[in-house]
Structure formats: structure tokens, C-alpha cells
């Protein structure tokens, strides 16, 4: 469920194992769509760098987020990184990351679509595809020792499945039977040549399930089962969330919006339209939600835009806990030059 108050998690309202209410799904999907469209506009207007759209994957994120608890770690790739909004990340925080503003909890360190929100256990998003798949094995081992019933959830695309890190990550995850759920968003066509992630999971003795990635409630049910499995110590699961062809992210992903190629079939499979159709929501109610979320998004963007960039004085920080003598010397030099 969408929320603009940090700290509240979307998944906590409904019980995790009960079906995802249609309004929750709809709100989540609509929120992500609005945020995505807004970010796209901001990027085109030159207000921010390259935008990594999540268009087409909103239902997947809605289902995944709703199946997680506050203590679970989310370890997405850039394309899935707006999932933080479904765990209660405020819109001003989110847009501050996209726009490089002072309310970004990661201090403007990364390009758009690479948030870190530790307070919500949204792990630091990296660009190198696949790296979090191994790290999750380590997070999972730590969670297993901590015995707090936490689960780490990774999210990635078909590219991630091709990486070396995929196999090492699946291998370590399965070998140590850690509480991890790996979610891969793949379009039907991504799998035409070679086995998809679920088939590849077998190479590692890793439990795998498949689900329609454009159906938030199906995703939620599948995820809830996988999370329960992980929590109860039965080990990791790979969830292959598949999408029909028009939702395919082209190889040149990150450069084009999903589905742009074929607007006709797109509208049939668009998770937003599908959710609205299937939700049983009255048109007026749905429109009201749309309006409410639109104004929240507008407010969030405006608030973020009004903020300053993180201060230049941060230039030498966060490399180490304390600045090394070399960093101190460079900082002094930099300060001296600024004075001139």
C-alpha cells in the first residue's frame, strides 16, 4: 500500500498470508506508475539524470512488497528500486534520490534509481547487474544466525540471470539453505533461447516457482508462500515472474520504456489497466485514488525540488568512517582553492 509517511510499511496492514486486497494492489500500482511517469518527465526536462523506468513491473513490486515484513531486506536492481515507496518511503525522500536533493538518505551519492534506505531495510542499490544475488547469501547467513525470522529478497531482470553472480549466488544460497527469496522479472521472449531462471535454479538444487508477474495478487500469494518457507527455515526459493512479450525489456534496457513498441497489445497486458479491470473498484473510487495519489506525487516532487542539493562539503566523506590523512590533505587543498 502506498504511503507517504516514512516508517510505515505497506505490507503490514493486511495479514501477509491473506489475499492482497484489490484496492491495496491498485493503489500500489498506480503510485508506482505515477512516480515513473513523473520521473520520466523530470529526466526529459533535464531536471535529473537517466531514469530507469519500472513500467510494466508495478504489479510485481506491489505483490512482493505486500508479502514482506519491516525486518525483511529488499535488495533490488535499479529497475525495481521504487519498491521502497511500497514499504513506506516518503515521496519527498524518493524524489530527493532521483533529483539529488538533501532529503536523499544516501546524500546524493548515486545516480537516479539507486536508493539506499536503511531505516526501511531497502539495501543499497548497485548498478553492476547481479552483485546483490551473492550478497544476499551473506545477508541470509547473518539472518539465520540472528534468528529473528527475517528474510532477504532480491529482485532482478533477465540480464541478472545471465551473470556469473547469478550462479554463484544461487549456489551459495541453496548450499547454506539461507532465508532468501530471489525474484526475477523475465519476459516470455527473454527465455526463448536458453532455460529461464526457474530451470536454472535446478542446477543448484534451489526450490523454484513461476508466477504471472503482471498479476499483483498472484505474485503476493506466491511470495507469501516463499517467504513463509524461508522464515520457517525450509530454505530459499527462486520466483520466476514472467511477463508477456509486450512487457519485455529490450536488450538495450534502460534506454527505452517497456512496451513502447506496440501500444495496442500493451494496453491489454498493462498491469495497471488489468488491475483496474479486475479489481472490482468502482470507476469513481479508482479515479479518487488516482487523484489523491497524483496530488501526493505532485507535492512530493515539489517538496524535493525545493530542497537544496547535498552540501559540497560532503565531497570527502563516507569513504571511510574517518577521513584518512590523504583525504584530509585533499580536502584542505580543495577548501583553499574555493576561497580563491
Amino acid at each position, binding site marked *: 500500500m502506498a504511503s507517504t509517511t516514512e516508517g510505515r510499511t505497506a505490507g503490514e496492514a493486511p495479514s501477509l498470508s491473506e489475499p492482497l486486497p484489490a484496492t491495496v494492489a491498485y493503489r500500489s500500482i498506480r503510485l508506482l506508475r505515477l512516480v515513473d511517469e513523473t520521473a520520466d518527465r523530470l529526466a526529459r526536462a533535464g531536471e535529473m*539524470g*537517466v531514469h530507469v523506468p519500472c513500467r510494466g513491473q508495478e504489479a510485481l513490486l506491489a505483490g512482493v512488497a505486500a508479502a514482506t515484513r519491516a525486518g525483511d531486506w529488499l535488495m533490488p536492481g535499479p529497475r525495481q528500486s521504487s519498491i521502497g515507496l511500497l514499504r513506506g518511503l516518503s515521496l519527498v525522500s524518493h524524489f530527493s534520490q532521483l533529483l*539529488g536533493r538533501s532529503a536523499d538518505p544516501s546524500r*546524493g*551519492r*548515486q*545516480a537516479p534509481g*539507486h536508493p539506499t534506505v536503511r531505516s526501511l531495510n531497502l539495501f543499497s542499490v*548497485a*548498478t*553492476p*547487474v*547481479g552483485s546483490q544475488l551473492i550478497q544476499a547469501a551473506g545477508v541470509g547467513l547473518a539472518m539465520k544466525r540472528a534468528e529473528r525470522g527475517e528474510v532477504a529478497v532480491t529482485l532482478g531482470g533477465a*540480464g*541478472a540471470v*545471465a*551473470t*556469473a*553472480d547469478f550462479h554463484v549466488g544461487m549456489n551459495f544460497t541453496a548450499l547454506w539453505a539461507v532465508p532468501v527469496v530471489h525474484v526475477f522479472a523475465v519476459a516470455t521472449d527473454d527465455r526463448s533461447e536458453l532455460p529461464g531462471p526457474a530451470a536454472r535454479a535446478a542446477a543448484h538444487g534451489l526450490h523454484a516457482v513461476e508466477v504471472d508477474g503482471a498479476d499483483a495478487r498472484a505474485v503476493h500469494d506466491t511470495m507469501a508462500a516463499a517467504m513463509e518457507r524461508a522464515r520457517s527455515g525450509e530454505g530459499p526459493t527462486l520466483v520466476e515472474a514472467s511477463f508477456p512479450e509486450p512487457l519485455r525489456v*529490450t*536488450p*538495450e534496457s534502460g*534506454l527505452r520504456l517497456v512496451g513502447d513498441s506496440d501500444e495496442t497489445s500493451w494496453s491489454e497486458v498493462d498491469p495497471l489497466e488489468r488491475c483496474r479491470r479486475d479489481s472490482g473498484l468502482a470507476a469513481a473510487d479508482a479515479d479518487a485514488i488516482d487523484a489523491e495519489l497524483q496530488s501526493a506525487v505532485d507535492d512530493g516532487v515539489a517538496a524535493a525540488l525545493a530542497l537544496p*542539493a*547535498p552540501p*559540497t562539503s*560532503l*565531497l*570527502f566523506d563516507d*569513504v571511510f568512517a574517518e577521513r*584518512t590523512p*590523504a*583525504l584530509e590533505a*585533499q580536502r584542505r587543498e*580543495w577548501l583553499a*582553492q574555493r576561497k*580563491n
Partner: protein
Amino acid sequence: MPEMNMIQAISSALRHALAADERVVVFGEDVGKFGGVFRATDGLQAEFGEDRVFDTPLAEGGIIGTAVGMAAYGMRPVPEIQFADFIFPGFDQIVNEAAKLRYRSGGQYTCPLVIRTPYGGGIRGGLYHSQSPEALFIHVQGLKVVVPSNPSDAKGLLTAAIADPDPVLFFEPKRIYRAAKGEVAEESYEVPLGKAAIARAGSDVTILAWGAALHDCMTAADELAAAGTSCELVDLRTLVPLDVDTIVQSVKKTGRCVIVHEAPKTAGFGGELAATVQEHALSWLSAPILRVTGYDTPFPHALEMEYLPSPARIRAGVESVMSYEFA
């Protein structure tokens, strides 16, 4: 001669190499059908076929390992790594395999491959679309390292790199892919590896640079000239093999040396250059050799313009060596 930008010049070199030599193949992530995220391989698959120009899965170790095998067999692979920041999953195949194959086989097998990869900051790319890792490859013995700063060199150096019998890392300054333009001959030609160029002659101070930073040095040199300081700007072009003679000759003439690179200062190639210059020309030095570089942090996103060695910082560096007085 037609005017080309860097991308066009690189593309032209690839096209000539593919046409002239059956052994040349070009591959990487999105280089085939799509033509590369920066369009450097645009149209090549259509022209030369899917056997010569092709896409690979997202696995840099696979891309480079495949190239090593091809090169050992006798082909001339020219793989692309989409951004230099993503070369590290393939680092082992570069460092432990490509670089050592000739040596460990006593010359029986060789590894004539060219890894093309865009490097450097200034495009709002943040940590992972901005790194300048050339020093890492320079320290690994068995690799040649080339960084062009203009379209004409880019074409000639890439042609020479493909003809070279050993593995070459070819770093392309993406910040100036389109901004750097110049006359480039249509036909194929080589700019020999291992030769620096005097990008601007001068007498007061030598500036050593390569790639995109060269243009910032040129800007600074123009401004300094107006203020009465004459800079000799050396474009290294090839970092391995290094043209020590040209460098040392220039510093002996000017007595002062400023080194500029985008990569972080510590253990960057500037350190090696400074060490080499003082080895050969200590008694000619009127001031310490100064480095104007990226700072010792990961590459910043919001603050990248503070981080990069700007013309203003280069100017300040030159001014400080000009005003240096021995203790």
C-alpha cells in the same frame, strides 16, 4: 577530409578492420542488433552479418574469456565492455589470462585482442558510469593501454591496436564521444602505439594528460597563455608502452611538470609518471611535480563537477608550480 566525432571515427576504424580482415569480430552486450549504447557499432551487424558482429549475454567474464579463446586460436576479437565500470567481472580473464598467455606459453600462444570500453566522468553517470580504471591495467604486465583524445587519433590508434599482436585495453573518453570533432581520413590508417603527441608546444611548464582531460588542459593552457604562462601539453595517447623520451625531453625543457587525470590521485598513473619524470630529470626540476586529479573517493554523482580536474584546478596547479620557490 570529412569531419567526424569520436564515435564516428571509432566506428570507421571498426568497419575498415572488419572489411579488411576476416579474423576480426566485434561483440559484446547490445553491440549487434542495437548497435551499442553509444552507437559505436551502429550498422556493423547489418553490414558484416551476425557471425562477425554479435550480442552476448550479460557476463563480462564470458565476453573476455571468449575473446581470449578466439585470439589464442588466431582470430582478432574486438570485444566491447559497455562501460569501464563493468569490466571487473572480467578482470580475472584480463589479468590472469589475456595478459599472461604469451608469457606463460613461452610465446607459443598469443592473445591479440582489443577490449574497447568507454571510461570517465562528466556525464552525470554517478559511481558506475564514470570510473577511470586505466592504472589498474597499466600495473598488470602484458597489457597495452591506449586512450585517445580526439577522433583522428581514435581511429588510427584503434586500427593499430587491432593490428597489434598483443592484448590492448582501448579506453574511450565517453564525455567527448560527440563533443570532440575533427577531420578524419576516410581510409584506414594507423597511429602507432607508444608515441605521445605534443598537443600544444610551450616553454614554461609541461602538462601530461590523456583522453577527455586533455581538453580541460587545453582550456587551462589557453587561459594561462593569456596570463603569460606558456604550457607544453603532451597528449600521452598510449600509456603502455609509454613514450618516456617525449615526456622527459619536454620536462627538461620546461623544468616544471603538472600531471592531470580523472582517476583518483593515490596510486593513479600520475604517480608512476611523477616517479619516472624525477628519475630522469630531477636536476632539471624547478618545482615539485604536481598532480591535478580526481580525489581519493569513489566517483561522486551530485558533486562530479567538484571532483573532476577542471580547467580552474589545472590552472591553479600550474600557477602553483610556476610560483614555487625552493626551501
